[in-house]
């Protein structure tokens, strides 16, 4: 490439095309998601081994109402996130921010319901190391897995508010909102495995 070409086209002609035609930031988020999948898979498979090997594994959940509401809220928050990205792609900043904040609100509501459930279990005598129903390992497994997920939800809510406001302010663009959305969908996706393995299989019959 001649100096004249460089002047005309800048350095873009010398740059490699991004992998899979995906921008670097989005690719970084995908790599993070893959790594986080391994983290959650590790936790859930380890939980499976412990549960399978422990004869007096407790089944403390008497009702599915709370977990059903939490699931509905989280899945619904995924679609409100998609509405936000859709509005951002259409260039409607106000609508995009509104849907992003609704998504964050749903995430916050999910977190509150989750904490309420934790408090109810703690009230019944469950801690990290003991509970009134059976092996103490249940508390460790339950609080570790749901706690890790709750941490992800909390970080997601903070990220959604921060990115949404900066998008509205013009510092971030629709791509940044979409990347945050990828993270949020991942949090939803993990919950799809946590519900059957940690809650539904431990339902008292």
């Amino acid at each position, binding site marked *: 490439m001649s100096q004249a070409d460089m002047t005309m086209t800048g350095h873009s002609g010398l740059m490699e095309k991004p992998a899979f035609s995906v921008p670097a930031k989005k690719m970084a988020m995908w790599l993070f998601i893959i790594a986080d999948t391994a983290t959650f898979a590790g936790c859930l498979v380890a939980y499976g081994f412990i549960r399978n*090997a422990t004869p007096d594994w407790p089944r403390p959940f008497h009702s*599915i109402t709370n977990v059903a509401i939490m699931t509905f809220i989280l899945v619904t928050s995924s679609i409100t996130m998609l509405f936000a990205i*859709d509005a951002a792609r*259409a*260039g409607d900043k106000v609508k995009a921010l509104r849907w992003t904040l609704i998504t964050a609100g749903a995430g916050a509501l999910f977190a509150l319901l989750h904490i309420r459930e934790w408090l109810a279990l703690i009230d019944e005598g469950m801690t990290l190391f003991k509970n009134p129903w059976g092996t103490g390992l249940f508390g460790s497994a339950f609080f570790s897995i749901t706690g890790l997920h709750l941490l992800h939800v909390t970080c997601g809510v903070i990220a959604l508010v921060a990115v949404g406001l900066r998008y509205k302010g013009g510092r971030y663009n629709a791509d940044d909102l979409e990347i945050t959305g990828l993270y949020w969908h991942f949090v939803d*996706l993990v919950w799809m495995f946590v519900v059957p393995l940690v809650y539904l299989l431990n339902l008292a019959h």
Partner: protein
Amino acid sequence: MAVAEQHKSGVGKYMVVYLCILAIAALQFVIAYSAITASQMFTRMLFLAVIEAALALLYFMHLADNHGLLWFVVIFTVFVLLAMQYGWTDSFRALGGAPWAK
């Protein structure tokens, strides 16, 4: 052409996928109350969770629109998960005790 004019909304498709995911989640709750063995319950629930996750990956996370990235994510993730299995055999041994230690 303005960004808004170029944009094609996918709201209809998203709603269909959303309803499918909700229906599958509801099915998991129904399975939880059915009179089957724990292993049957586990298999069915995990199968449905994989379908839910696949729908979310393909349509919510837009992997259906980028086949190159789809294969990268699937192959990479499956490789990582399979590589983790290398350690699980040790977990099995820990459950039964090391045979040579008896």
